[in-house]
């Protein structure tokens, strides 16, 4: 019986191809809207969260705006770092620097920091090593350089042992970082040098920015502790500094994209609903047109249930075929967008989105097919047979 129902539904759909296609179009467009919009938002937010992750999510960053005569020094940082809640801590003195090697020059970002910086930020060293405590204590003329600097100045990444100069001073390269490929972090274009050396070079004796990581997974209590320490440092002036919790940034980002997904998905779902109304409309016309057929079927033994099933399956088939076609077109659209957007962002259909779209189509088929199908099933056989 069930195969027969599917066959009947298929032949009804196939016997009026243009009408069936136009009916499906509503569902097709609805599914495309849902799938493409949700996939785009998902892809975009994945790449943004990827970028935020590249900056490090499990870290606190502090910027000192006005020290009110209570400057933060390396020994202050050391003291902060001894607190139970706080793990690693490192200054971050940023400035622009022209890096030279023979006749080649490179405009780099320079960061003066200490040996814990790479662990806090999750920076990976490819060749050699990162800065260490001795470099800072001895004011050593050593640098760790980003991937792009090595490639630009030397044409290769293995450059440990080479020298370069910054501001007329010669430095020994002790490490080269792995390529990060990130769009918003500039690790590839950065040169890291001992904080003490940098501080002297740019004549900034006090720490104006630093990063810290929590001792445990509990970044919130680390944030609270650090805030306390800074408030004490700056005599309870909360405008003296900015403390950013990167994981909170991530949470905010996630909630923004979540809302966006819901909003766009909702708008798209409305277009799917409109498609469903199209199905109902056509099914109602079809029931009227096929009144006589319904009468004949009832006369030769079809029950109400049989007729109901026949029309319901037909509506379901229309919406499901529409859904599948919509998914295929969506896949094509996303492939095109992905290839245009480049490899940094990938807009792929997740199984959840596929499930959502098909589930939605099915639901629409049932919801909007039920009324016409029920109407068909309730036709009185004698009246239906008299219908011209």
């Amino acid at each position, binding site marked *: *019986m069930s195969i*027969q129902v599917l066959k009947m539904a298929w032949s009804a759909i196939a016997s009026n191809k243009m009408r069936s296609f136009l009916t499906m179009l509503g569902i097709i467009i609805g599914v495309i809207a849902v799938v493409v919009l949700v996939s785009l938002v998902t892809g975009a937010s994945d790449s943004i969260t990827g970028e935020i992750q590249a900056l490090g999510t499990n870290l606190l960053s502090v910027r000192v705006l006005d020290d009110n005569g209570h400057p933060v020094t390396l020994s202050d940082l050391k003291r902060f770092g001894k607190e139970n809640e706080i793990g690693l801590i490192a200054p971050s003195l940023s400035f622009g620097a022209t890096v030279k090697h023979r006749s080649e020059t490179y405009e780099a970002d320079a960061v003066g920091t200490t040996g814990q910086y790479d662990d806090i930020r999750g920076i990976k060293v490819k060749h050699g090593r990162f800065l260490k405590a001795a470099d800072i204590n001895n004011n050593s003329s050593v640098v760790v350089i980003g991937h792009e600097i090595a490639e630009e100045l030397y044409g290769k990444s293995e450059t440990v042992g080479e020298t370069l100069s910054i501001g007329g001073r010669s430095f020994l390269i002790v490490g080269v970082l792995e390529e990060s490929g990130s769009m918003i972090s500039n690790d590839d274009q950065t040169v890291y040098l001992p904080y003490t050396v940098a501080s002297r070079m740019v004549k900034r004796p006090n720490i104006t920015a630093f990063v810290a990581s929590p001792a445990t997974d509990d970044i919130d209590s680390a944030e609270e502790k650090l805030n306390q320490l800074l408030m004490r440092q700056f005599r309870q002036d909360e405008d003296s500094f900015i403390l950013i919790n990167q994981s909170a940034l991530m949470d905010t980002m996630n909630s923004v994209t979540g809302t966006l997904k819901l909003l766009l998905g909702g708008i798209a779902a409305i277009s799917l609903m409109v498609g469903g109304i199209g199905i109902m409309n056509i099914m109602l016309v079809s029931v009227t047109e096929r009144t006589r057929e319904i009468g004949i*079927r009832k*006369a*030769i*033994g079809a029950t*109400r249930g049989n007729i109901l099933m026949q029309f319901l399956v037909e509506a379901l088939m229309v919406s499901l075929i529409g859904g599948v076609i919509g998914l295929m077109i969506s896949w094509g659209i996303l492939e095109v967008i992905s290839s245009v957007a480049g490899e940094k962002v990938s807009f792929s259909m997740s199984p959840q989105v596929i499930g959502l779209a098909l589930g939605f189509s099915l639901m629409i088929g049932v919801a909007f097919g039920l009324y016409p199908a029920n109407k068909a099933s309730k036709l009185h*056989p*004698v009246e239906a*047979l008299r219908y011209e």
Partner: protein
Amino acid sequence: MILMNDISKTYIIGGEQVHALKNANLHIGRGEFVSIVGPSGSGKSTLMNIIGCLDAADSGEYILDGLPIGNYSQKQLAGIRSRKIGFVFQGFNLLAKMTAEENVELPLIYQGVKLSERKARVSRALSKVGLSDRSRHRPAELSGGQQQRVAIARALAADPAILLADEPTGNLDSKTGMEIMKLFLELHQNGNTIVLITHDSSIAKLAERRISILDGHVEDAV
């Protein structure tokens, strides 16, 4: 086989009552070939719809093959139609999008007959009406007489207790009509119970027994 006592059916059109059937009494036995004859509007189709369980009487008692019809649900009535009754209509009432074969198969599908048995019964029914070679044709590709044969095959496929034919020759020329009547006579000889409804007395007299109907009154000369 068919037992009717005081069956009445009234339609209301525009506030006016039309007594389509008035206290009809009818008794038709197993294996009989009965014709019900009367002028247009006399209530023949109404009677047939009640015999065929397509419609319910307003009052009276109707027993079909030992089953008192009246307090059955729509679903049960559909089951009774499908097992007991084979309809043949004036306008053939075949499904235009289906082949002859598929039309004949349809009642068997609703009965839930297995595929292999369906195929066997369909070809048996089509050969009974002499249309084995037209099984893949659609109604539009068949003559009126052939279409009516397909309809008869469809009625026969389910092995019904009664064949109910409402003006089966009404849309056919007299020669083709006679061929259809021959087919009915043949089916009767093979043991089928047939109720034939017509306004044409020359057709009616071919049956074993005639029942007249006039203005909703059934004159059953048992």
